[in-house]
């Protein structure tokens, strides 16, 4: 096939794929609730959740995970 012919076909194909940023956002919006639900049902939060929060070490685990997740998404 001549390259010019190929270009002619490409120019007429107006259908675009989804931009990767949007695709990731949509996947996150769909998957986060599912992950949360699975956690609550299968593992369940620790029974002493409220008291554990007082000890500094426990909330820091969340801080660390968030600190990794947020720049990864940016």
């Amino acid at each position, binding site marked *: *096939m*001549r*390259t010019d012919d*190929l270009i002619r076909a490409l120019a007429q*194909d*107006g*259908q675009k794929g989804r*931009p990767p940023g949007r695709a990731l956002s949509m996947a996150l919006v769909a998957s986060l609730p599912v992950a949360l639900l699975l956690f609550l049902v299968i593992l369940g939060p620790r029974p002493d959740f409220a008291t554990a929060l007082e000890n500094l070490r426990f909330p820091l685990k969340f801080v660390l995970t968030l600190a990794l997740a947020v720049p990864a998404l940016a």
Partner: protein
Amino acid sequence: MQAANRGDERAYRQLLTELAPLLRAMVRRSLGGGGHADVEDIVQECLLAIHLKRQTWDESLPLLPWVGAIARNKTIDSLRRRGRRTEVPIEPLEEVLAAETPAEGLSTGEIDRALAALTTRQQAVVRAVSVDGISIRETGAKLAMSEGAVRVALHRGLAALSAMMRKDQ
């Protein structure tokens, strides 16, 4: 490219047409000296990849490095696929090779071979729009398909071509 992404078909076509010689130069430089029959095939693969992945280009970044990366990857794919023929010593074959180097714009038909493996409908649409140069509306009339169906078949056909080229590895 930015105009093309907002739907300016003429700008897009002009961009692709101007990119082709640029891609040819990039590929030739990567492949090194000697005549290469594969250059045009690689250029066509690059154009197809640029087309299918155009929305992954970050508009705030320069275009040419993005194009260059695609060209480099497709050249590597081609070398892998064809078993690095270019490393064979070519001195005894120089006269034969010079005659075999095709004119610019012609390829060894790698995409044509992949085209033949498409489904009948996609093949017909892609051929009509590219080789025969018929417009989408006329293709619909000729093949008894709606315009929307033609567009979908064209896009899927092009995506299938790209998948087929990558499958060979």
